[in-house]
C-alpha cells in the first residue's frame, strides 16, 4: 500500500483489530446491560376483589416478586378489611360499635370499656373532626341515619316529631374517649341526653384504607392501588413510572364517568356527593348526607366534594363535612386549613380547586368551568 507523506502506517492489519475490539466492546456492553436489566425486571401485578364494607373492594399491588405480592394482598384483605369491618359495622351485631350502641340504649351516661385500639382511636378522631368542622361531620348521627333508612328497602320520609326526637339524640360533645391501660373507654350520653348511637360510616372506609396502606408498606410494597368502594388510596407511582391518574366521579353521570382527573402519588382521593345514595318520594330526592343540625338531608349548593389527603380517614370525613357546610363555609374552612387539598363542584357547574391541586387536576367536561380557591 502506497504511503503518502505525513500519514502513519494504517495498514489493514492494524485496523481490523481496532474494529474487532470495538465490536467486542459493544457486545460485552449489550450483554452486561441485558444481565443487569433483564432479570426480574418485569413488573408483576396481583389483584384481589372482595365484597366487604358493603361494597366492591379491589386491591392491586405491583412489584417484582409474585409470591410476596400475593401474601401482602391476602394479608391486607384478611387482617385488614375483615377485621376492621367486624369492629366498625353498625350492621354487624357483634361489632364494637354495635356493642357501644346497645349499651347506650340502657340509659343515661353509659361508659363502655375494653374498646380495642382501632375503634377507640377512630371514634376519638371522628370527634376531633366533628369539633373542627363545627359538627358538620358528626359520628353520633346514627339515630337520624337509622330513622330515614336511606340505602335500605325501608327508606321513608319520617314525621317532624320523629325527626325532632332523633335529633335530640345527636350531640358529639356528649361522647368522650379515654385511654386506659392499653384499651379505650368510651363515655356516651349525659344526664339530659340518652340513647345516643355512633355511626362510623362516614370515616370508616378512609380509616381502613389508611390501615391497609400501612400494612402494605410494611410488607415492602412500593406500588399499589386500593379501591374501597370508590375511596381510593395509591402507594407510590403507577407501575409505568408516572403518577397515578384517577378519574373523579361526575355528579350527574353514571358511575365510572368522570368530570376530570388528578395525577397523584402516595395519597388518597375520596369523593362524596348526594347522587351516591338516595330515594325519591313524590318527586323529591332525599339523599344520604344528613345535616346533623336539621336531621334532614343537607341542603347544599355543592354537588360533589373531593378531598385529596395522605390520611384517608380525614379525607373521608371531611368530604361529608364540607358538603354539609356548603360552598361558602367550605371555602373558608379550606382557607384556614391550607394543608387540605380539595375539589368542590358547585351547583352552577363550577369546579373549585385548591391551589395545591391546580397543577395536577385536569377538567375533562367541557360544560364545566374551573376556578382556583384563594
Amino acid at each position, binding site marked *: 500500500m502506497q504511503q503518502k507523506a*505525513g500519514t*502513519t502506517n*494504517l495498514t*489493514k492489519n*492494524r*485496523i481490523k483489530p*481496532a*474494529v474487532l475490539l*470495538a*465490536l467486542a*466492546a*459493544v457486545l460485552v*456492553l*449489550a450483554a452486561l*446491560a*441485558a444481565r443487569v*436489566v*433483564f432479570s426480574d*425486571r*418485569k413488573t408483576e401485578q396481583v389483584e384481589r376483589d372482595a365484597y366487604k364494607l358493603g361494597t366492591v373492594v379491589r386491591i392491586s399491588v405491583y412489584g417484582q416478586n409474585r409470591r410476596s405480592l400475593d401474601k401482602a394482598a391476602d394479608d391486607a384483605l384478611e387482617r385488614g378489611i375483615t377485621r376492621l369491618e367486624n369492629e366498625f359495622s353498625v350492621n354487624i351485631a357483634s361489632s364494637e360499635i354495635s356493642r357501644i350502641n346497645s349499651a347506650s340504649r340502657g340509659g343515661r351516661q353509659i361508659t363502655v370499656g375494653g374498646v380495642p385500639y382501632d375503634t377507640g382511636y377512630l371514634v376519638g378522631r371522628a370527634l376531633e373532626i366533628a369539633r373542627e368542622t363545627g359538627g358538620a361531620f358528626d359520628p353520633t348521627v346514627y339515630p337520624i341515619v337509622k330513622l330515614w333508612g336511606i340505602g335500605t328497602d325501608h327508606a321513608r320520609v319520617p314525621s317532624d316529631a320523629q325527626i325532632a326526637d332523633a335529633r335530640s339524640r345527636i350531640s358529639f360533645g356528649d361522647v368522650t374517649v379515654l385511654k386506659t391501660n392499653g384499651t379505650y373507654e368510651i363515655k356516651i350520653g349525659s344526664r339530659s341526653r340518652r340513647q345516643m348511637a355512633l355511626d362510623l360510616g362516614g370515616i370508616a372506609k378512609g380509616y381502613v384504607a389508611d390501615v391497609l396502606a400501612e400494612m402494605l408498606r410494611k410488607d415492602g410494597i412500593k406500588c399499589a392501588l386500593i379501591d374501597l368502594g370508590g375511596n381510593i388510596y395509591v402507594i407510590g407511582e403507577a407501575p409505568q413510572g408516572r403518577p397515578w391518574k384517577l378519574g373523579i366521579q361526575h355528579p350527574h353521570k353514571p358511575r365510572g364517568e368522570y368530570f376530570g382527573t388528578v395525577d397523584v402519588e402516595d395519597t388518597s382521593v375520596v369523593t362524596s356527593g348526594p347522587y351516591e345514595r338516595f330515594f325519591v318520594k313524590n318527586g323529591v330526592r332525599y339523599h344520604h348526607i344528613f345535616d346533623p343540625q336539621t336531621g334532614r338531608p343537607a341542603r347544599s349548593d355543592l354537588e360533589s366534594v373531593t378531598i385529596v389527603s395522605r390520611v384517608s380517614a380525614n379525607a373521608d370525613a371531611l368530604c361529608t363535612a364540607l358538603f354539609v357546610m356548603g360552598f361558602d363555609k367550605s371555602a373558608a374552612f379550606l382557607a384556614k386549613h391550607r394543608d387540605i387539598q380539595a375539589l368542590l363542584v358547585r351547583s352552577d357547574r363550577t369546579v373549585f380547586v385548591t391551589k395545591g391541586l391546580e397543577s395536577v387536576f385536569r377538567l375533562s367536561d367541557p360544560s364545566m368551568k374551573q376556578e382556583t380557591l384563594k
Partner: protein
Amino acid sequence: MRPRALVLTALLTSLALAFNIAEGLLPLPLPGVKLGAANVFALVALVLMGPRSAFSVTLLRVLLAWLVSANWFAFLCSLAGGLLATAVMVFVYVNYKSEFSLPWVSVAGAWAFNAGQVAVVALMVRDARMLFYAVPLLLIGTATGWVVGKLAEMLCQRVKKIERMDYR
C-alpha cells in the same frame, strides 16, 4: 501525543459533547436515543489524526455526556452506538477511502450509531418491536449524517490546506 494533537482532540471532544447535548433536546419517540450528529467529530479526528484519536474522541464524549446528564440509559445507548459508529467509519475510511466521500462515510457511521442505540433499547425493554423504530431513525440519521459529513469534509479540506497536515 503531541500538544497540537492533544488540543485538537480536546476541541473535537467538546464539540461532539455540545452537539450531543443539543440533539438531546430534540423530541424523539425513544428515550436516550440521539440522531448522532456528534459522531462527525470522531470522523474529523479520524481523518486528521487517525483511528486511535477517533476512538478517544468518541469514548471521551460518551463519558462526559454521562457525567453531564446522569442518564445511564442514554449512556449505554450512546456508548454502544458511538463505538459501533466509530468502528464502522474507521473500517470504511481506512480501507475504502478512495471509494467513499466523507459525507457518505458519515452516513455509514450514522447508520451504525442508530442501529447500536436501537439494539440496546430493544434489549433493555425486552421488546423486539423497538427495532421497528430503527427504520425512521435511520432515515433521519441519513440526512443528518450526510449534512454533518459534508461539513466535516469542508472543514478537513480547509484545515489540510492551511497546514499541510500532520497532527500525529
